């Protein structure tokens, strides 16, 4: 009988950023960004990321962000140019729109890959950089399919195929409707799996120094999270629909038989409130379950993780944050951001803290680190991965 393994020393991530201190960074960043017409935003991003990373503590050491402003600025200029081109193409008719959408689809997965690679290459802990070895071709598979399904009807409509009812017959529309409907249904069924693939790509192809991370989460937990959300949305939707009907009927009866503008406005606002309520009430359940599944399923060498985000905590933080922001006309945004970040970071625990000591840098990495960016001259595009 082997002796029972000694209890591992676990250690929770700590976040020491405060709203008060971040407020100063945030306000100076905003002012300089607006005064410089956005040019300073690259330097602002470096300051912000430094603040987030350096305030994240794990077992006595902190994370560090090494991104430099100029590559970020280049990335932002490129992103703005792409966006302007896209918007200009959208004002045209026909094939221009289709070309713009295809063009966007062709570059987005590549840009996302480069962005994530830049992010990880510029992150470090205890002097060791993170890396990302995930390929862009996987990104094309993961993002291409949903983008195709989501953008296809818009592209068809804009290309004028739908707008000119004289040449394709009614049959054409029926078949196209059925086809698109089936595509959407397939997309909805496939979505949790694609989300799982995305997280596996992000976590499983990441490296800490020379050590490759492993990803053992199951697609089933993603399906579970989305299924719960679907049940909540359908249930909530029925309840909301019934109460909206009652509400508009009651208000309509009050204004001399005819449904007045007041009733319509109130019903409209109620519908918007229900929509935001669903976002605030349902999204945290998905976020919590998926963060927990993803981190609990991630391993780096001997180091395992555990995450215990609770949806109700997230809902509480989101609601009070919203209240704070609205009542302060936006001035308390940095406080809200720090509260949420602190909660999310501190819910992650490292299961074998002593194993954090044993990692080694990739061979030749010191030489790359010596010149800062070195081989990594990619551009950062802020997609909020």
């Amino acid at each position: 009988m082997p002796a029972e393994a000694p209890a591992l020393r676990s250690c929770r991530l700590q976040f020491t950023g405060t709203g008060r201190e971040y407020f100063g960074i945030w306000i100076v960043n905003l002012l300089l960004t607006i005064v410089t017409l956005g040019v300073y935003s690259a330097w602002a991003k470096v300051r912000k990321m430094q603040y987030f990373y350096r305030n994240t503590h794990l077992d006595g050491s902190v994370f560090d962000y090494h991104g430099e402003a100029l590559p970020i600025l280049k990335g932002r200029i490129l992103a703005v140019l792409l966006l302007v081109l896209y918007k200009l193409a959208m004002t045209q008719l026909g094939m221009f729109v289709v070309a713009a959408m295809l063009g966007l689809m062709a570059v987005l997965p590549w840009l996302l890959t480069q962005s994530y690679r830049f992010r990880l290459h510029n992150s470090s802990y205890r002097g060791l950089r993170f890396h990302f070895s995930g390929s862009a071709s996987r990104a094309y598979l993961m993002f291409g399919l949903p983008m195709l399904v989501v953008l296809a009807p818009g592209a068809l409509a804009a290309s004028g195929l739908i707008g000119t009812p004289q040449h394709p017959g009614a049959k054409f529309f029926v078949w196209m409707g059925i086809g698109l409907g089936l595509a959407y249904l397939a997309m909805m069924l496939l979505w949790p799996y694609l989300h799982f693939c995305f997280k596996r790509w992000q976590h499983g192809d990441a490296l800490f120094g020379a050590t490759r991370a492993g990803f053992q989460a199951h697609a089933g937990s993603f399906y579970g999270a989305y299924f719960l959300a679907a049940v909540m949305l359908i249930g909530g939707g029925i309840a909301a629909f019934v109460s909206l009907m009652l509400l508009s009927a009651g208000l309509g009866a009050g204004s001399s038989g005819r449904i007045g503008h007041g009733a319509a406005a109130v019903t409209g606002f109620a519908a918007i409130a229900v929509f935001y309520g669903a976002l605030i009430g349902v999204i945290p359940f998905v976020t919590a379950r998926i963060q927990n599944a993803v981190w609990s399923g991630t391993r780096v060498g001997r180091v395992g993780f555990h995450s215990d985000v609770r949806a109700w905590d997230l809902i509480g933080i989101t609601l009070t944050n919203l209240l704070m922001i609205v009542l302060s006309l936006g001035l308390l945004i940095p406080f809200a951001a720090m509260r949420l970040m602190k909660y999310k970071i501190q819910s992650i625990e490292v299961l074998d803290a002593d194993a954090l000591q044993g990692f080694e840098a990739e061979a030749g990495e010191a030489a790359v680190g010596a010149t800062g960016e070195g081989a990594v001259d990619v551009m950062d595009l802020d997609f909020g991965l």
Partner: protein
Amino acid sequence: VSADPIGVPADVAASFYDGRVSRAHDVRLQIGANGLVLSSAWLQREYAWTDASLSERLRGAPRLIRFRDGSHCEVADQERLDAALAVAGYRDSWVARSQHRSRYVATCTVWLVVVLFAIYRWVLPVAADIAARWLPPGVEARLGAQAAKVIEQQFPRTQLTGAQADRVWRVFDSIVPQDGRTFRLVLRDGGPFGANAFALPGGTVVVTDQLVKLADDDAALAGVLAHEIGHVENRHLLRQIASRTVLGAVVTLIGGDVSGLAVGVPAALANLSYSRDMEREADAYAVTLLKSKGMPVEPLAGLLQRLRAAHGTEEASSWASYLRTHPDTADRVAAIRAAAR
């Protein structure tokens, strides 16, 4: 190194990471004007300041000294480090210093509010106007053509008699400006939208049957058409698109840290005030045009009041006034009458 005569500590405790293995080494750090010395029982390293960079000071996080060879130090004892740095003559950049002093932060906050207000009130309307002018007319015409196609399909055909339609065409032809722009008049049955008129970029003016019947006076009809022509002439829709884009970008910049959830609402609200400004501008254009044709202005004011009555009780709830795209009818009527004098 000898002890400092004025009591400043000669060295600071730090954790050293060599950049090769994820292990911390406790070292003493001596800070001089030209460089740093790291020492422990088994390690001795010297770096010139040109090979080292110091991170900005944060309250809750250790300060980092990164070396060119990929190694770095984390210093938790901020006070001793500050004292040693002061002796060495080091100063943080002005941005880093202003971020952490409440007086500068308060000043920046005030400036930010002032700058945002100035942009919103004066810079953005002018910039949107310039952008709208700069856009080639072909783009505007195409945008309008798309919208016109949709409207001509969605609204039922006009129920007006030939004589009624001829009257609208006659009034329209008498006031339409001859400035090279091709204006189009489209008559449609308003259906649930009732008495209404709107302009599309490029020069399409849509009028509903219900409005034509309400405007029994030619001068009133001319006033409504002139108002819509004013929207076209001032390129209001393009200006709306331009200002909405910029407002969206600014709001995202400010609120992006928390979530995209609440970002759309303030941008949309902010845009409504521009929309009301544009209605006033179109009213002023209509008054000028009517006067130049020698037509009376009063019928337009009267028509606006009848329109308000036709649209029912929308003015009843005062909280909705913040959410309206059009200014209060009473204000508009008063402004038109004042301009007519």
